[in-house]
């Protein structure tokens, strides 16, 4: 037994080293920079001055919430539809859904821009059809569209996993008791797939709130979000510490929202929900 635990401990070393080097150490740096002034002395100033970024936080949270809700509204029916198709079709649909994820987010955002831009594909098409151009890039809608486009698979996949693992007997039992397909969806399938919904929400909300290039590119630089602000502050050596402080606050924000989400799913487990 001892020998085995020694081997196990040995096998964990690379992982531990990795964690220390690339997770814990950077975190320590962030905290260190957040609480030091430009001269390297301890200071609360960075954190205390964050209130002037308040509107940025609010705007980012709004954008993230809206795109999460839209992802859920589009993603849930899509996942439900996928889980109801034949096993072969399901596999194909999952691959189709994952396909864009094999391409860098940055490239996807650029290509979306190429389509939506004032001189882009969509507008050329509209023009050739004799319809007036639409102004999309540079509107809040474009930023949200970008977020939804980029993060939708992260909503669909966990919900789909939840639904496809759901035993068909629950659908049959609900049908048997007089619930039509719609009532079965709302009263049985949805509550039983809540764990998937919650991880989907988390997986979309977290990257949405911290994203930076989507709003820069699709928002035409008009909307300053947290991600953009952090990037800008870090590019300037003199505002390193402010960037660190914003990062710290954002991390805490994300931690809180994840904790709230986990609390929901735990509550569901107590009721005998299905764990993803």
């Amino acid at each position, binding site marked *: 037994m001892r020998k085995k635990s020694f081997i196990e401990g040995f096998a964990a070393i690379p992982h531990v080293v990795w964690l220390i080097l690339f997770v814990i150490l950077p975190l320590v740096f962030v905290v260190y920079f957040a609480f030091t002034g430009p001269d390297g002395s301890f200071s609360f100033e960075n954190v205390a001055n964050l209130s002037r970024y308040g509107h940025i936080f609010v705007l980012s949270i709004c954008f993230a919430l809206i795109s999460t809700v839209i992802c859920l509204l589009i993603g849930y029916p899509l996942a439900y539809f996928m889980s109801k198709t034949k096993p072969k079709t399901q596999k194909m649909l999952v691959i189709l859904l994952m396909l864009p994820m094999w391409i860098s987010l940055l490239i996807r955002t650029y290509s979306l821009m190429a389509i939506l831009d004032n001189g882009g594909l969509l507008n050329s098409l509209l023009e050739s059809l004799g319809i007036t151009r639409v102004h999309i890039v540079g509107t809040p809608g474009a930023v949200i569209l970008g977020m939804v486009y980029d993060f939708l698979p992260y909503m669909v996949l966990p919900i789909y996993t939840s639904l496809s693992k759901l035993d068909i007997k629950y659908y*049959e*039992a609900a049908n048997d008791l*007089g619930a039509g397909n719609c009532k079965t969806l709302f009263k049985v399938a949805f509550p*039983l797939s809540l764990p998937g919904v919650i991880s989907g929400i988390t997986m979309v909300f977290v990257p949405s709130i911290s994203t930076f290039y989507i709003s820069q590119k699709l928002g035409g630089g008009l909307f300053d979000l947290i991600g953009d602000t952090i990037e800008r502050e870090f590019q300037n050596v003199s505002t390193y510490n402010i960037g660190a402080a914003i990062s710290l606050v954002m991390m805490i924000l994300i931690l809180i929202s994840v904790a709230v989400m986990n609390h929901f799913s735990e509550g569901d487990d107590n009721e005998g*929900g299905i764990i993803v």
Partner: protein
Amino acid sequence: MDKDTVIVELKNISKGYNGEPVLKNLSLEIHDKEFVTLLGPSGCGKTTTLRMIGGFESPDEGDVYFMGKRINDEPPYRRNVNTVFQRYALFPHLNVFENIAFGLRVKKGKDRPKEKEIVERVEKMLALVNLRGFEKRSISTLSGGQMQRVAIARALVNNPKVLLLDEPLAALDLKLRKDMQKELKNIQRETGITFIYVTHDQEEALSMSDTIVVMANGEIQQIGSSTDIYNEPQNAFVADFIGESNILDGVMLEDYKVQFSNQTFECVDKGFEANEPVDVVVRPEDIDIVPIEKGMLRGKVTLVVFKGVHWEIIVDIDGFKWMIQTTDYCAPDSEIGLYIEPDAIHIMKKSQYSDMFGDYSSYSDEFEELSVSEEETEEENKKEEETDNTEADK
């Protein structure tokens, strides 16, 4: 409605999966207020038949009628039929009360009872299945037997005309199963609802049913009361599947005279052609042991097994191993005589199943299999007890 009304009728039903036929031209009438059991080995099509009545399968050919109306294309939620599923399929996100109330809450518009009535009806059901006080319990804290009761209550609260039960007791241990059998029978009598019950357990079928439908290979082998099925099996399959039986090749010499084991016996059957080959069934409990010189048949005891109420002994007669159940002990290797009353001999026409059932020469193997499955049940019992204990602690 009285007992003679046909409530469910299946007409010339055929069904196949991937070209494999599951049901072959099956026709069946089920009468109102009856306890009907579909009995057969796994893969015989009994569950498919049940699911067809519930609306979860549609026949490739043939029609399903409910109270005279063709319901082939009616979805399950529009049928006045409810199901108790094999593994209960209780909703894990709802407590006991809400599980039972589910069927009432999903009713549309005017049909949906008021909250007060829902509470009343659920309480009535909880009383019926002896689960008063369990309203707020979550499903995951229930034992198998309790889940079973919730499943029954959840189905019955909708006042179905027909209740379908798909091997509902299969997951319970022996003792609980026996109790639930009695309880189910009582519930059926009290409510007067037609029960269509699927099982592979012949004892369960015999003790509960008004009518048993024996199925094999997607076909009905025999329909009749428990005593009909046991005493007058239609073919070798039914004789073998229901209870223990010695099935022998025989020849009907003339009315009331049959020959098997190189002997001629008097019997009570007639209407066969002269010298027609037949299957002969003799139940092990109908054979008397007599001193060897008085025996109609003589043989050597090869195996003796104590079964509690009786002994089961295997006797070798001219190479054919007979099973005999007796309260008289016989020593292994002793020579004994057998005496069979004429009315203990049952003659059946030859069928496709005639040569599929041999004698009891493989009996000891069967016995081992039985003891293995008993061990498994014991393990399940233990689990059951553990859940019960944790409940008591709470």
